[in-house]
């Protein structure tokens, strides 16, 4: 296993541990936020890339294409929104969770899902902009076969149409709001 997949699997596992500690009831709110952010960033990726490329080249004087700036922008926006969802009361679900062992299993599963969504999306932006932060991420050419296979399953690459990400969000919100 190469360093790049080790790094992002580690990030995913850390997020999973956070999910295990917080419990799946709280994590569900974060899942909804993360899915919505993935939808927004992926849906408007072309437009945002075009705008931020102009900002990078014309305003900041960076050489085209400003891959490092773009990866930092997208990753930064994503991390900021995810951090806000963890730190603030943006979408706070409440209720009594299932008792163990089912509750533990759900804590683990939802934690793993959030870990995959967060780590996978960060990896996606590194891969899309050709690993501009290779000194930090430990990127080595060429990527291992396992990493190349995993990239096809990163969250923004999962669906050809990013609108699909909003479907589970909409279903969950409808279920919660109908009461």
């Amino acid at each position: 296993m190469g360093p790049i997949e080790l790094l992002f699997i580690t990030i995913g596992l850390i997020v999973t541990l956070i999910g295990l500690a917080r419990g799946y009831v709280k994590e569900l709110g974060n899942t909804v936020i993360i899915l919505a952010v993935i939808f927004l960033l992926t849906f408007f990726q072309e437009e945002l890339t075009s705008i931020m490329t102009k900002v990078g080249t014309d305003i900041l004087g960076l050489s085209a294409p400003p891959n490092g700036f773009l990866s930092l922008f997208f990753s930064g926006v994503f991390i900021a929104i995810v951090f806000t969802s963890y730190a603030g009361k943006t979408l706070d679900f409440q209720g009594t969770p299932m008792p163990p062992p089912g509750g533990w299993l759900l804590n683990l599963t939802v934690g793993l899902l959030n870990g995959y969504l967060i780590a996978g999306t960060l990896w996606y932006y590194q891969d899309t902009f050709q690993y501009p932060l290779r000194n930090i991420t430990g990127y080595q050419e060429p990527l291992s076969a396992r990493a190349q296979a995993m990239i096809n399953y990163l969250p923004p690459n999962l669906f050809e149409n990013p609108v699909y990400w909003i479907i589970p969000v909409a279903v969950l919100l409808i279920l919660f709001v109908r009461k």
Partner: protein
Amino acid sequence: MNINGSISIELMISFVIFLTFFGWIGLRRGAKRELIVLLTSLISWLILQEKGDLLVRITNLGGQLLALIASGGLSDNGTASAAATSSTQQLVTDTNENAFLFFVWVIIVIVTYWLTNKLVLDKDSKSNGWAILWGIANGLFFASVFLPRLVLLFLPTETSPQQAGQQLAQDGRGSVMSFLSNGFQMVSDAISNLWVNLGGLQPYVLLILLTLFLVMVYFSIKGAKIANLGGSGKSKC
């Protein structure tokens, strides 16, 4: 392990049904009853395997005592009784020792099932996830004990349970771990094959599975509601 075609589907279904059946039994009986059965059957099995010869000796001594009593040896001068006891055939010999110990273990398990039904109250033995887990654990343990013997039904009559067990054990089969690992390998192979066959439908299946999973998580929360929608700036991890 790589088994092809419809056989793997049959094995996978059998494996899943087997686990589901024992999980259902566990759910019906409750966690406490199943845990008592699991611990009793495990510990008694281990004790009989390690110290079974002690029980065999006690049983044979008991047999000799019965023979002594039957021959009136408690009241005579000892000569006739000594002859009676020395000529008594041992109840448990080397050839039937394993069968005897297995019989004793089965009796212990049956009695434990019966006693837990009688003595453990329903309110003390909750039907929850633990009950399912302990039920499955019992099923796995019983599989490792009974399967080498049941296999004899399909093997030549001269094969003993020990030889059947040894045949299974040669490739690491017949143990609980190999039963589990082979079973889960089958399930994983079936899922991989199904995934490849889905082709272009894969994203849609993933979407449906993700949505169903989140809906299931929602329905697992009692009194689920959104307590707050909006930012307050206060950190609440």
